């Protein structure tokens, strides 16, 4: 059987028209691929072949002619899909089936997309390696002994492993871009407010954003087209018209001013946690040179406050998370400890057993930073520094149109390497976090492989609501990059 899921969405669309493929044909191809490689990848948190085949038949009956008609999409396990398991890869939400669709899911359904299932993730998106999931950790398709990145590791790995065509992730500090980078796929965190958060189970509400994880930049534009837009159910979504991002698939960076921040030098950002110089920087330099050759202008810029980004992020993110995760108390839904004999005991045992250690660590951190007597020193100060970081970007964008860095300081690392050292793990997101703090859009796309054959990703960041420029720059790079793409061997 033809493995339709290997195609990009744009290619599959052509195939569907040419060969009059049904959703059921495509679902079968998904099932075949699943049987072949999922054991090695472990990207799904919830996948049911029977349900998928029924859903495909249903879809064929409805014959929706939307932009993503019959295109397979995987949904990160923290996005609510009506009546489907949605657990944030946490024991505390075991068995939880939301009675409603997230706004992005409504949009996907209206576009005719074929929803495959839910992808594995770090528990509540707390992590950069997919190892804090209550299920088995997801493996990197390029080397199954290595992590796929996180927290949207399942989504990125499934796209890379051709188990799906498209995927949705969520990005609070790099959770879309970093796994996309480590798995050699394209991932975008849109501007805060571009995509509705309604139905995304919150981690850091002022940082979270849903975004596409795709095989190429074209698909990224197509999926972004479907999920973007103002939502009256989300007060933080922006009432700003959405352009047709397909129009940004233009091969042209002539005159584009690309800012290279001097602070994004790996060594200076790693504090005392020095890591050996890796090949990531080399690949980024090659990409810069290519864009320069294509007519872009390279500008040195400075973002003096981004060195505080990780600290600020862990205060703001954990503070919000400590409050957002309070509702998992065993009262209404999800896991409840049966042994408890009093209310307080129920809370303690339910949360004690239902939440993993990284979730507890962040809840405790956030509870501390919001406590009376510490609020000013931590939360309030962090918010002030966050404003300074925003200003850094505003200033930088007066000198350049787009900022370019590597997405992750390193390529995929062996599983277990950082699980015992949370701080080292936190630093994996050092290059991605600033965009979340500022709220600006950013994209990660593959820019080659290191000597071990592991994907390297480059990151573009743009001004608020300028996803068009991100797509144009990324598309131009994609169309002109000289290195040869290779699929993971599974």
């Amino acid at each position, binding site marked *: 059987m033809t493995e339709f899921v290997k195609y990009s969405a744009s290619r599959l669309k052509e195939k569907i028209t040419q060969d009059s493929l049904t959703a059921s044909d495509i679902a079968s191809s998904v099932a075949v691929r699943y049987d072949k490689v999922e054991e090695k990848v472990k990207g799904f948190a919830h996948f049911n072949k029977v349900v998928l085949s029924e859903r495909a038949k249903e879809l064929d009956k409805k014959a929706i002619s939307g932009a993503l008609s019959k295109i397979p999409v995987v949904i990160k396990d923290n996005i609510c899909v009506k009546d489907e398991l949605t657990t944030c890869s946490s024991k505390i939400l075991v068995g939880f089936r939301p009675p409603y669709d997230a706004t992005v899911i409504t949009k996907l359904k209206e576009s005719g997309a074929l929803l495959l299932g839910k992808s594995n993730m770090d528990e509540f998106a707390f992590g950069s390696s997919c190892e804090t999931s209550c299920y088995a950790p997801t493996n990197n398709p390029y080397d199954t002994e290595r992590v796929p990145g996180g927290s949207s590791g399942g989504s990125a790995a499934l796209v890379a492993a051709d188990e799906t065509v498209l995927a949705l992730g969520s990005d609070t500090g790099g959770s879309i871009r970093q796994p996309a980078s480590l798995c050699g796929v394209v991932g975008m965190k849109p501007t805060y407010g571009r995509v509705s958060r309604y139905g995304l189970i919150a981690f850091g509400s002022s940082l979270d954003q849903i975004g596409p994880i795709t095989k190429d930049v074209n698909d990224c534009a197509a999926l972004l087209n479907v999920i973007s837009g103002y939502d009256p159910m989300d007060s933080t979504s922006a009432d700003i018209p959405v352009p047709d991002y397909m129009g940004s698939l233009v091969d042209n960076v002539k005159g584009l001013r690309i800012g290279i921040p001097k602070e994004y030098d790996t060594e200076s950002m790693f504090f005392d946690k020095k890591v050996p110089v890796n090949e990531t920087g080399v690949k980024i330099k090659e990409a810069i040179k290519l864009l320069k050759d294509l007519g872009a202008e390279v500008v040195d810029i400075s973002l003096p406050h981004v060195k505080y980004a990780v600290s600020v992020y862990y205060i703001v993110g954990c*503070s919000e998370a400590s409050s957002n995760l309070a509702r*998992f108390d065993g009262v209404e839904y999800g896991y409840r400890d049966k042994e408890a004999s009093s209310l307080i005991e129920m809370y303690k045992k339910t949360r004690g057993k239902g939440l993993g250690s990284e979730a507890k660590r962040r809840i405790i951190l956030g509870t501390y930073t919001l406590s009376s007597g510490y609020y000013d020193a931590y939360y309030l100060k962090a918010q002030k520094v966050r404003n300074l970081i925003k200003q850094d970007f505003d200033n930088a964008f007066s000198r350049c149109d787009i900022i370019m860095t590597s997405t992750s300081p390193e390529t995929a690392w062996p599983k277990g390497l950082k699980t015992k050292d949370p701080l080292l793990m936190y630093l994996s997101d050092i290059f991605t976090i600033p965009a979340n703090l500022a709220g600006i859009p950013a994209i990660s796309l593959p820019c080659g492989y290191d000597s071990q054959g592991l994907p390297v990703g480059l990151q573009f960041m743009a001004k608020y609501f300028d996803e068009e420029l991100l797509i144009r720059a990324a598309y131009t790079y994609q169309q002109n990059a000289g290195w040869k793409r290779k699929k993971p061997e599974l």
Partner: protein
Amino acid sequence: MSHYITTIGLEIHLQLSTKTKAFCACPNSFGGEPNTFTCPVCLGLPGSLPVLNSQYLRHAIKVALALSSNVSGRMKFDRKNYFYPDLPKDYQISQYDMPLALGGHVDITDGHKTKSIGLTRVHMEEDAGKLIHDNKRASSYVDFNRTGTPLLEIVSEPDISSPEEAYRYLVTIKSILKYLDVSDCNMEEGSLRCDANISIRPKGQQELGTKVELKNLNSFKGVRDALIYEEKRQARMLLDGEVIVQQTRLWNEQKQASEPMRTKEQAHDYRYFPDPDLLPFTIDSVLVEEIRLSLPEMPEEKRERFIRDCGLSEYDASVLVSDRAMSSFFESCVKLYPEPKVIVNWLTGDIQGYLNANNIEFSNMKTTPQQLTGMIRLIDNNTISGRIAKEVLFDMLVTGNSADGIVKEKGLIQISDEGVIEQLAADVLNENPKVVDDYISGKTNALGFLVGQLMKKSKGKANPQLANQIIKKKIEQARE
């Protein structure tokens, strides 16, 4: 209490009667089967997000303006974090350091002096659900129908110096709120709730005493009773040389006593922080002005107008304006029958008496202004006597029927036929020769007795003026 000065501050929680809840589209209504007025947002389901109801904001601004509180230019919502099963998100959306409005005052009067009670702030927050305990099965249930109901918290300054003042403050604020038509203000149904802070200190001492917070106050009277109890309890402790500890106490209505709930050390750290789901926003000053212009006449202004334009007494005017429904009923009546004093007598007399005796809110009264003034006109045109009118009015209040119908149905039309009255008078005089003699010998009040007898014989239907005239005439005739 003569040795001590009492200091009281009140926190009122007011449910606003918006069409939908504070942050979702669920109906905001009382009652209903448990958990039927709910949706992912008010159930706090994972992934759901709040969106501010614009009618909630308008109502809140209306109250703030009516209480002379300064509506802020910019406001935000904060999260108040604490665990409780009736709070589905385990945090309450409230306002901390940038509330809807700051300052303001409520003027209370004891009939002689007016005192201004300052307000600290007016802020918006969502209500929690309700726990239902089943002691037989040792289980508890949660009803989330009330979750997300829009509340306003009105915090007074510690300007109240007696339980009686606290009571008057509540009555006054309720009457203002009723005029705004934004809340049912029903303490029994919980649409108006009140917590009190009270401390006492020896006369002459400048700094305030240690405050105690009182909760579970379920009526205005309960607030007053609990404060009186607490005032005495604290005074006794001070007299005995005991130290008052800062604590929260629950009022026990049955025992008429307060009981300790938690001390300051046990107080929650609510970890307030700005709710990232609801961004700070600027309140449109055009909207505020629009609401200000649409405010109805407030009770104080109305009272003055009634005294000035209708010639009412201070007392009558105060009684009328204390209830918005009564004052507008009065105004409708005056339009139909321009004798304000006659109307106010019926309203504050028989009508209020009936409503109080039967525990009926004025707004739920069945009789209309057309019906009341219709009845008064029946007295004016001698169809019924004033005495019969009282009977007719009672029927009207019970049935909601008009005076005309009742009078006809019950045959209560006044007897003005002189022939009939003369026959009745003749009977009365024949039956009471001694009283007639008393009258002739100069005891003028004997006449009243004879007229009374005649009225009795006519079952109250005789025209009293005619009865009076005819009896007098007949006695004169008999003497001649």
